[in-house]
């Protein structure tokens, strides 16, 4: 009965419900495989000229959930929003002749520029570190691989730690360990915060379902973060037609300067 209700609710929430393979019994006859369905409140976030960040709600439903595990709260959900990937360079300052200057640096390979995580509880309580590391879920478990590795291990962990701390400090990395809430026994809602400085591009919503501390199923959905209208036109122009863009800047400057001298002329 409950499962059926879940199905109904899930289809109500979701526009793109894919058929689950959960119907087919595997191994033991009693064990059906759980399914996970997710949908987002929007598939596109627009960065407007007064953009101050946004909230994204991810809805999800468990299908074929085991009643017993549900009752004792053995299902855990982690939802993440991963930004576009790029290299990241961490630099360290040291005092040289009384002046603080960058002396050491480390570049990490293709890490998400932004990363927002919501979970049912503390993620390290959901699963053990090695398995979270292997799937790269959680700010402390993202793979940070230095390019052209040099230096020692102490150095590496120091730079990794600094990277995470700085990203958390500027809001590009966030976590909310109570951000996923079950609204019914098998329906959940995750709230993710997108910071004002979020990069544009294709982001990915990942949802991970854990059962008794083990990842059993995951889903993902793309989320486009786009600059709109004028902002987009300006960015496009600056990157695709840089000479014209520069010319426009100079032209505005000349007109502003000249205009002012015309308007404020005293004769």
């Amino acid at each position, binding site marked *: 009965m409950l499962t059926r209700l879940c199905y109904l609710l899930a289809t109500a929430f979701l526009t793109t419900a894919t058929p689950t393979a959960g119907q087919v019994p595997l191994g033991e006859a009693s064990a059906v495989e759980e399914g996970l369905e997710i949908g987002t409140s929007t598939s596109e976030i627009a960065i407007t000229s007064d953009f101050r960040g946004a909230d994204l709600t991810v809805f999800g439903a468990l299908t074929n959930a085991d009643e017993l595990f549900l009752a004792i709260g053995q299902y855990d959900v982690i939802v993440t929003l991963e930004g576009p990937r790029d290299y990241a360079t961490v630099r360290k300052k040291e005092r040289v002749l009384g002046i*603080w200057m960058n002396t050491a640096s480390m570049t990490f390979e293709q890490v998400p520029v932004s990363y927002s995580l919501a979970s049912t509880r503390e993620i390290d309580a959901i699963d053990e570190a090695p398995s979270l590391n292997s799937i790269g879920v959680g700010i402390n478990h993202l793979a940070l691989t230095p390019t052209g590795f040099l230096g020692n291990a102490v150095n590496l962990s120091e730079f990794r730690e600094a990277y995470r701390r700085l990203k958390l400090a500027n809001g590009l990395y966030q976590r909310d360990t109570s951000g996923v809430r079950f609204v019914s026994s098998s329906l959940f809602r995750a709230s993710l915060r997108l910071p004002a400085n979020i990069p544009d591009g294709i982001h990915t919503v990942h949802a991970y379902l854990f059962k008794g501390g083990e990842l059993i199923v995951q889903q993902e959905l793309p989320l486009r973060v786009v600059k709109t209208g004028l902002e987009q036109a300006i960015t496009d122009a600056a990157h695709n037609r840089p000479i014209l863009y520069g010319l426009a800047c100079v032209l505005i400057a000349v007109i502003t300067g000249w205009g002012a001298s015309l308007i404020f002329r005293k004769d």
Partner: protein
Amino acid sequence: MTVYLPIAELSVNIFIILGMGAAVGFLSGMFGVGGGFLITPLLIFYNIPPVIAVATGASQVVASSVSGAITHFRRGTLDMKLGTVLLVGGLAGATVGISIFSWLRRVGQLDLFISLLYVLLLTTVGILMLNESVRALRRSARNEPPVAKRPGQHIWVHRLPFKMRFKRSKIYLSAVPILVLGFAIGVLTSIMGVGGGFIMVPAMIYLLRIPTNVVVGTSLFQIIFTTAYTTMVQAATNYSVDIVLATILMVAGVIGAQYGVRVGQKLRGEQLRALLALLVLAVGIRLAIGLVVAPEDLYSVSVGGFAD
């Protein structure tokens, strides 16, 4: 009210930017300077990335120099030929400067280098100006006549080859020191986002012995084209000119400048120079403090990377 800067990729308070532009415009109108040396550090203090502060500062100088240059052109106090020679040096300098800029950015020393250059130039120029204006103030207090200039005197600059005749300035001078000066200013424009008038004007008067009446107009001519060129090249190579930020600064700047000019006319020259010297010193010292005080965080992170 916040406004999103598409190139800097951050939201800023529009009133703070307008205020900055107006304040710098006011001061630049009052002192007759471009204001680049004030706007760039101010933007950096307001957490605009130095890369963008420098490139956008250069475009702001274009706007603030245009009206001045027009006035000088009308009055005939602009030596086109001299200005063109300066400009040739300036464009070459700006080209070299931009490659230095891009290289410093790649190795992660750009911010430090910009700060160091600012500290060095602002404190040196500030001390020299303060010294000179205090002496002038003392002289006028004692009612002594100013020290007579000796325009006929020959110094080493006049023994250099490739002499050219500059009719409007009524001088016969080697092109070499003019090109070198233009080049140096071009480098400064591209790395610091300044027009360089505060260095070029004294250098033209004291080093090249160019008549004072054409100096300001001619330097403005060089500044407009060098800063315009820098804006274009920065836009093309570093994608670092923020048109939204630049427009807000320019509009506020030119309006502020008009009021600055009116206040400036009520003050005496020596007093103005003393005040400007103090301002220049203050910015320099503020930047110097930033270099020696231990940073809050020893680490910094930047997106993008150079797998080298």
